[in-house]
């Protein structure tokens, strides 16, 4: 089995109204249960908006702490799932379920190390 990071990208700005968000969260909850039942769930999390982010970096040998986010854009990482899957097709199938539920694009990336040849 291999670990994949499923990153959810969402547009900047206000979240959907509560009735829409509530439905999405319920569906995501169901998928999480499915992941757990399949033994595919490792870890997941939703994040506060990018305005809550702080960035630490090294510049000229000095540590700087600044208001975030690291990269300004029209979209940001809204949440992620770390899952276990036998191959990319299986990982993509979970990503499709999440995309269907959230309508958000999801990037699927393999972790280094685990299960690599």
């Amino acid at each position, binding site marked *: 089995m291999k670990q994949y990071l499923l990153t959810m990208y969402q547009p900047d700005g206000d979240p959907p109204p509560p009735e829409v968000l509530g439905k999405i969260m319920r569906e995501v909850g169901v998928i999480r249960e499915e992941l757990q039942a399949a033994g595919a769930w490792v870890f997941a999390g939703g994040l506060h908006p990018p305005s809550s982010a702080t960035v630490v970096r090294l510049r000229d040998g000095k540590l700087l702490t600044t208001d975030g986010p690291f990269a300004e854009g029209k979209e940001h990482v809204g949440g992620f799932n770390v899952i276990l899957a036998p191959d990319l*097709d299986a990982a993509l199938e979970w990503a499709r379920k999440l995309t269907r539920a959230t309508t958000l694009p999801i990037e699927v990336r393999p972790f280094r190390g685990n*299960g690599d*040849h």
Partner: protein
Amino acid sequence: MANPTISEIERVFRQEYGRAVAILVRTFGGIDIAEEAVQDAFTAAVQLWPSTGLPPSPVGWIITTARNRAIDRARREATRQDRHSAAMLLQSSDEGEEGMRDGRLELIFTCCHPALATGVQVALTLRLLGGLTTTEIARAFLVPEVTMAQRIVRAKAKIRDARIPYRVPSEDEFPSRIGAVLAVVYLIFNEGYDASSGDRLVRSDLCDEALRLGRLLHELIPSEPEVKGLLALILLIDSRRLARTDPNGNLVLLAEQDRALWNRDQINEGLGLARECLRSSDPGPYQIQAAINAIHCDAPTAASTDWPEILRLYTRLYALQPNPIIALNRAVALAEVEGAKAALGAVEELNFSGYYLFHAIRADLLRRLSRNTEAALAYDAAIGCANNLKEREFLIQRRQALAVTDLRS
């Protein structure tokens, strides 16, 4: 039979490359290890075959030798690396008949996986299943060799790191996965029927490979109309393969071909499939192209070709796929229906200066309009872009014929 020269050994390896790599990928679970093993087998063959002659089954020899070399390699590296994977290799080393089963369809679906960009899919399939070199693939796509090499290395790394499986997709995944495979098979056929480089116009091995893959796909999913359309298209175009070159390997244009040389069995098979496609109310691009070629194959002489129908079909095809190659082909039909002047107008609307056929077709239209000086310049441009020796010779001849006419007038 005389013992093989190095270039003959190269040819055998090229021909059997896809089959060997596909089987070794299945055995060892990785493309790089499979390709390295086949390369090792090639080195061994170069040392051995010139004195021993070809083995009774070259492909069997290549696969067995490659498999043994890969296992030797794994044993050597096992002391410092991964004992576990070495043990797996040893276990899988003796698969017998099952291990020889054709794995090319699985591999083609890996190469054409949607997680890979289209250009990458085509390049990988040509490389792994067609056995083309990176140089040839780069030429086929008009990109620098370094770019193509990087593209292939990255794609293989992605297959390995993201673990893209070697698998024929399930029935419900098929519709979304098949388009890429069809495009790739057709490109392999085109590379065979109209070689992008080298001293041969036709590379029969690639035509046969594309035809084999086309048949395999059709066998697997006979209900998919575009699979049928592609097989019909390849069969019909390929039926003219023998007539397409003269005994010296020089190009013979469709209108000047000896139609008695056309392969009647292939035509009948292709026409049968094309007719089944015609029943579809909403034919896709391959089915339309098959219909166009069915018209050519149906005409007893070039003069009796139903060009208005061909033009209608190209117009329909262009509506589905508005790309300059189709526009160029449509212009050729337009020349037969409305004359060279109308066709030249259509050609000159296209911005396609890197492609030799653009210049060659434009040159021919200018020649027909007796605009010989411009035609000569267009032929020069075509000669400059043509990478295939036989095509270049053909164009040079045409240009010379023009100069003679020029002197007389």
